[in-house]
């Protein structure tokens, strides 16, 4: 797995519709109206926020690589296109199983909890009650402490069960060989310290960045497996509150509350001292995520049907093009229509859908 090819998959969906930096904001999980909307319009939820700390020079490097190889082209407005050559390689790429939309970086919290629990179980098994915790975040330590208080940690049965659950869920998750290796070597315990990224990279002959992509994907896969099954009671407890509970930004939640109280957009804008365009962003975000959003208060059913039909006829979700077709509708109305049109939970993302 390579950042360039990951980007190629993303770009294949944004083909001719968005600037190259839309994919950068997507990977970093920028919570702006535009990015949240892109995620929805182009079915990119899985990739949202999988690399929150991605550096711009690393991103540019990967893009240059794709340009040089002739897989993509970028026009003077920075809009990105996938070339014929690019489409050909697309089929050779792996199926990505990221689920960034649901976890948004919290997968690392899950792993830190697990890491400390495994370390503790391992040391306790060896009758070592005092050790240096590999995780020094207070919230993680507190969670693990409370978790362990509820378990019979001194009983060998505890680590046996943890072992069984981990082994079975890893097998069930569909991780590939590399991912399983990375996952278990990032865990450590008595007489078996964890491996650093550098050590894994040297030993496995895989670039550190690629390792981290594999790793993040494997966490998403495992989390999905655990959350969909009742066979892993310990792990189910460990993944508590890892999945994001609301898909809305905090500011949007406030707007939504006021709207539910019956306030108009104008009124909300005045009350919150926010620009009208910001409130519009909030409404688009709500329309995307909330099944019960009353879109009919803003546009008629006929208008919706017409726009949806035109959008698929032209094969575009670019607002400027649709606006030319429907001069009577505002940009805001168009965004609402596109938003509700693509509503739904996070889906597995595969290349077949491209």
């Amino acid at each position: 797995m390579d950042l360039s090819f990951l980007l190629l998959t993303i770009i294949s969906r944004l083909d001719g519709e968005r600037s190259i930096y839309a994919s950068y904001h997507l990977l970093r999980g920028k919570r702006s109206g535009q990015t949240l909307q892109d995620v929805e319009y182009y079915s990119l939820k899985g990739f949202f926020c999988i690399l929150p700390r991605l550096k711009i020079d690393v991103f540019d490097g990967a893009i240059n690589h794709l340009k040089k190889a002739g897989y993509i082209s970028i026009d003077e407005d920075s809009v990105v296109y996938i070339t014929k050559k690019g489409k050909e390689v697309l089929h050779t790429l792996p199926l990505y199983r990221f689920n960034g939309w649901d976890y948004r970086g919290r997968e690392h919290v899950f792993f830190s909890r697990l890491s400390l629990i495994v370390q503790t179980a391992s040391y306790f098994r060896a009758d070592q009650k005092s050790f240096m915790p590999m995780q020094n975040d207070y919230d993680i330590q507190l969670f693990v402490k409370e978790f362990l208080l509820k378990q019979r940690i001194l009983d060998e049965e505890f680590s046996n069960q943890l072992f069984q659950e981990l082994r079975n869920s890893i097998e069930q998750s569909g991780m590939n060989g590399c991912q399983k290796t990375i996952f278990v070597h990032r865990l450590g315990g008595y007489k078996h310290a964890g491996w650093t990224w550098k050590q894994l990279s040297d030993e496995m002959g895989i670039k550190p960045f690629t390792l981290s992509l594999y790793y993040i994907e494997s966490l998403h896969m495992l989390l999905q497996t655990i959350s969909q099954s009742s066979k892993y009671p310990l792990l189910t407890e460990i993944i508590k509150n890892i999945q994001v509970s609301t898909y809305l930004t905090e500011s949007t939640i406030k707007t939504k509350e006021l709207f539910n109280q019956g306030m108009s957009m104008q009124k909300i804008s005045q009350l919150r001292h926010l620009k009208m365009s910001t409130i519009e962003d909030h409404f688009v975000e709500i329309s995307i995520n909330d099944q019960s959003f009353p879109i009919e208060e803003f546009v008629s059913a006929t208008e919706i049907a017409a726009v949806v039909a035109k959008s698929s006829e032209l094969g575009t979700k670019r607002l400027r093009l649709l606006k030319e077709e429907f001069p009577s509708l505002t940009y805001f109305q168009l965004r609402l229509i596109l938003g509700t049109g693509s509503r739904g939970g996070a889906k597995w993302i595969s290349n077949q859908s491209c």
Partner: protein
Amino acid sequence: MDIKSILLKKFGFEHFRVGQEEVIRNVISNRDTIAILPTGSGKSLCYQLPAYIKNGAVLIISPLVALMEDQVAIMKKNGEKRVVAINSFLAYKDRQRIMNRLDLYKFIFISPEMLMQNNVAEQIKKLKIAFIVVDEAHCISQWGFDFRPDYLRIGEFLKQLERPNILALTATADNQVLGDIINYLRLETPAVHKHSLDRKNISYSMKQMNSEHEKTAWILERTKKTAGPGIIYVASRKRADELAIYLKEHGISIASYHAGMEQEDRAFIQEQFITGEINWICATTAFGMGIHKNDIRQVIHENMSSTIAGYMQEVGRAGRDGDLSAATLLFTEEDIGKTRFIVQNDLPTETEVRHYFNLIKEGSSKNEATQLSGISETGTRIIDYYLERMPMESALLKIKEQKTEKEKQLQNMLHIINGENCIRKSLLKFYGETLVAAPASCCSVCGLGEEDWLFEMKRGNSTRQIVDWADRLARLLQS
């Protein structure tokens, strides 16, 4: 309960180590105390034990976050849960939580810059403080190798407080530094305990080389043929990675260790080093403070150190178990120039200071001014401190004095490296000590004596290997 029974009950030791008991008795009797004890001689017991006798919390001011976190982790590991570290790395929510319940803690570690924050200081003033510890107290001295202007502010904090007695701890302090400690902390007729800094079980070698290439070749031979565990100190993170890769390719069990790594990865390396899964660590001098391992047999410096005090502190990590250990420093002619450049570059030039000053006056933020004037971070901290207290011309003079001081320290180190005198004797002389009797394995000038132990490879270079995933899981949870 008397202190001997506490020693046994709380810490599990039958006897004090040399120097500890006198310090502890002074602290208990509310006297200001300075303890100059070599690294690894059990400094922390000097405040931990009295804490159990006296009412109230102990406030420990410590300069390095890494060091602080480390000490807290060790104390927690040893069963003391009422311990906390307050520093700027603490997340806001954690800080709030801790500050609101400060009375829960017996041991409060705090960085000097946090003491300067009004709300923090207010909370601390409300507490009953048993006594105050100033760790690494030499940082308060402009003459120290590790001067931290923030430390000077400790004195200002103490002024606001009806203060209990103070224990100043350091591993290295010559008379000039000692004077500064007494002055700035306003100690009242302190009891000074100075334990000999001579570490008889460590032998010192200085080796001149012709090129960097020759150094690398020497290190490879050395790590191949002589005993670990050991630390190799290098000048930069990049070099640490580079050298570790090179040696690893030649079959040495080694990893690099520096501040550029994630916390989790650093913890893994520490653990691997302590358990013996890896035999060598390649670290930058700025880092590696937090390595606690008693059986380190060798410390190798790939470059010249810029001060004797810094060198002593790094070398001091060897042989804490009392067994024979070797310290080797490699240097080339060019090293001297390079080291001088780095050291002097740390301090800003007159033009830079004036530029910085003008930028601030014109309304630039501190960050902008730092970047535009090209001054190092340490540099700005020093300037800020001076400029707040004195006119520009005096500040410039102060900085100039410091440059001269740094050069002097470099000369002292050079004197030892190039000298024809016993290295041990020269090092001790620097601290005003006289060498009574040299051990058999003394130094590269006197002769290193029989070094059989060094060539006994007790542990082969271990073979860490990736194993099957299910096997590893079983080793962690089933063995």
